[in-house]
């Protein structure tokens, strides 16, 4: 039995322990330890992916206890992909955010890194686990570390934003826990695969219906689906940049993964779509989430806030797509987990670079940024194109699958919302580009206006951030070009 599935999760956990000690004793070793442990995690995730692709699903039995009793990590192609995504983004972000962390939390860099690792452990655990209660524990590990990390941000607003996040996050996790309780009452098991074998025999059970609804609503709160999104914009906008960069792309996407896992591997597509009559309503919710997220983004004056509302909008894509009830929609939703994580990561990397140099990123204050930070803006433009859905970038392809799925399911309103949101995103980003590119630089400090165009000195972010941004930007195009391969080798084997 190979130990890679456990290693992916355990490496950052051990890293967090050691980093906690070194942060206390000798601070300069903390960063290398954290980076190494995440590097080991990435290597293990890659080996996992290779193994799953060659030899199929891996079942890893924790401590050798047999599955229905013991906790099991079950790695199929979907898990392996999301695990790889999480560990790679965590690793890259850490490398990119070194200077941001030193700038924003100079005296608490050690605790920042420890919580960062625990956050990653939680995410990877959510992805890896095959046990319903373990999923709850992992969600709570993720959430607890993100509460503390959000509170490390902006001194004035962050504690309050984090507190609101706690209130709503606790309700979400508790509802999920309650749902698991009902599943346990009904089936006597907590193992996902074991529960999945029993669900077809109790389709009419109202307890099971309650369990399903509670679990799904709990996960929806955690992923900030539209009416339940209120905690997200403030929490993410006031969080320190080094953390916002990882929580924005990963947290909501991993929760979408959890929803897909619950739908496919626990309750089963047959139960969700044939026994229950919820799908159409949920697709409408997705539609509304897309439109509402888009319009709320339009009214924002701060770039970070605007991007957080785009996250709310993108969640609508994935929830709607997953509930269309056909293979194309589900493919689009899963592909969008990957693509949206990359796109959001690129956007927040660029915004983090801007924050590093400008401190505040109100859209009106971004004049002349193309001259000042050309590389950052290049990455930002590419990511923006991907969010809008311009063909060679990856955003186009998942949207394409989603629209095809919407037509197949006859959900024209959802297809229309997808197209409208592309337009909204185009308006949003061109509004930003217009300020950055065309409006002349005004220094604001009143030390003379000398020459509008050429006086802008280049003041780029640190090289490490730029290199990571370049890697992610290239991956946006690569994920687009190879999206057919990804669908064929990763997503379709999982769905069939």
């Amino acid at each position: 039995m190979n130990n890679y599935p456990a290693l992916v999760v355990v490496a950052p956990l051990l890293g967090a322990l050691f980093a906690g000690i070194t942060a206390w004793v000798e601070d300069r070793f903390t960063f290398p330890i954290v980076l190494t442990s995440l590097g080991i995690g990435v290597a293990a995730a890659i080996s996992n992916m290779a193994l799953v692709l060659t030899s199929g699903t891996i079942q890893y039995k924790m401590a050798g206890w047999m599955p229905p009793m013991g906790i099991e990590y079950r790695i199929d192609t979907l898990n392996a992909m999301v695990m790889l995504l999480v560990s790679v983004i965590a690793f890259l972000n850490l490398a990119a955010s070194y200077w941001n962390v030193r700038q924003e939390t100079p005296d608490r860099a050690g605790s920042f890194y420890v919580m960062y690792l625990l956050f990653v452990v939680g995410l990877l655990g959510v992805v890896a686990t095959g046990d319903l209660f373990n999923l709850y524990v992992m969600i709570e590990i993720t959430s607890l570390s993100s509460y503390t990390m959000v509170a490390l941000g902006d001194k004035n607003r962050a504690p309050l934003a984090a507190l609101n996040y706690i209130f709503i996050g606790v309700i979400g996790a508790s509802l999920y826990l309650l749902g698991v309780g009902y599943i346990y009452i009904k089936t006597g098991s907590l193992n996902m695969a074991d529960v999945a074998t029993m669900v077809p025999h109790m389709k009419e059970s109202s307890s099971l219906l309650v369990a399903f609804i509670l679990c799904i609503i709990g996960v929806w709160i955690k992923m900030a689906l539209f009416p339940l999104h209120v905690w997200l914009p403030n929490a993410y906008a006031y969080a320190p940049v080094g953390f916002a960069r990882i929580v924005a792309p990963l947290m909501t996407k991993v929760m979408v993964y959890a929803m897909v896992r619950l739908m496919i591997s626990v309750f089963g597509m047959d139960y969700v779509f044939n026994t229950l009559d919820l799908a159409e309503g949920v697709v409408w919710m997705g539609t509304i989430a897309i439109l509402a997220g888009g319009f709320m983004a339009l009214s924002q004056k701060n770039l970070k806030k605007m991007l957080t509302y785009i996250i709310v909008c993108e969640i609508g894509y994935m929830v709607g797509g997953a509930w269309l009830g056909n293979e194309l929609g589900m493919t689009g939703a899963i592909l969008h987990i990957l693509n949206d994580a990359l796109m959001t990561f690129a956007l927040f990397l660029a915004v983090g670079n801007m924050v590093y140099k400008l401190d505040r990123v109100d859209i009106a204050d971004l004049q002349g940024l193309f001259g000042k930070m050309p590389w950052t803006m290049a990455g930002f433009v590419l990511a923006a194109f991907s969010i809008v859905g311009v063909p060679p970038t990856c955003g186009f392809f998942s949207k394409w699958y989603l629209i095809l799925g919407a037509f197949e399911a006859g959900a024209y309103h959802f297809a229309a919302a997808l197209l409208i949101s592309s337009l909204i995103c185009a308006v949003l980003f061109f509004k930003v580009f217009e300020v950055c590119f065309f409006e002349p630089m005004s220094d604001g400090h009143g030390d003379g206006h000398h020459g509008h165009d050429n006086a802008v000195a280049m003041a780029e972010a640190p090289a490490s951030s730029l290199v990571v941004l370049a890697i992610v930007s290239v991956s946006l195009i690569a994920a687009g070009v190879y999206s057919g391969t990804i669908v064929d080798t990763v997503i379709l084997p999982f769905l069939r």
Partner: protein
Amino acid sequence: MNELLSLIVAKYNYWLYIILMMIGLYAMITKNNLIKKLVGMNIFQTAIILFYVSIGYKRDATIPIIQGDAGHGAGEAVIRAADYINPLPHVLMLTAIVVSVATFGVALTLCVKVYQRYQTLEEDELRMRLSEK
């Protein structure tokens, strides 16, 4: 009427946890003071813990410790599952209690931070302070 009554009496543990949960939720939604909200949150979580603990119960059952003879060989005796209450939900709740304590601790810390910054924990006053700026 009788049916409803028997439904309530037969499943009183579920009714109780739902009532407790709603009390907690009510406090979280309507209370103005952040600490009161936190107390509501804790009641909410405790209700779920009670729900789990109650579902492990069986009538006329004892604690789930298997009595052996003088040695270690309990294996010979026939074990009837109905004689022992189900320990699994209780064990799960140990974890959930740890989680809720940790959440409560983090939330209290944040309350201290909010108080240090704004000298108040009343939500309406906080909102006023935030809109002033």
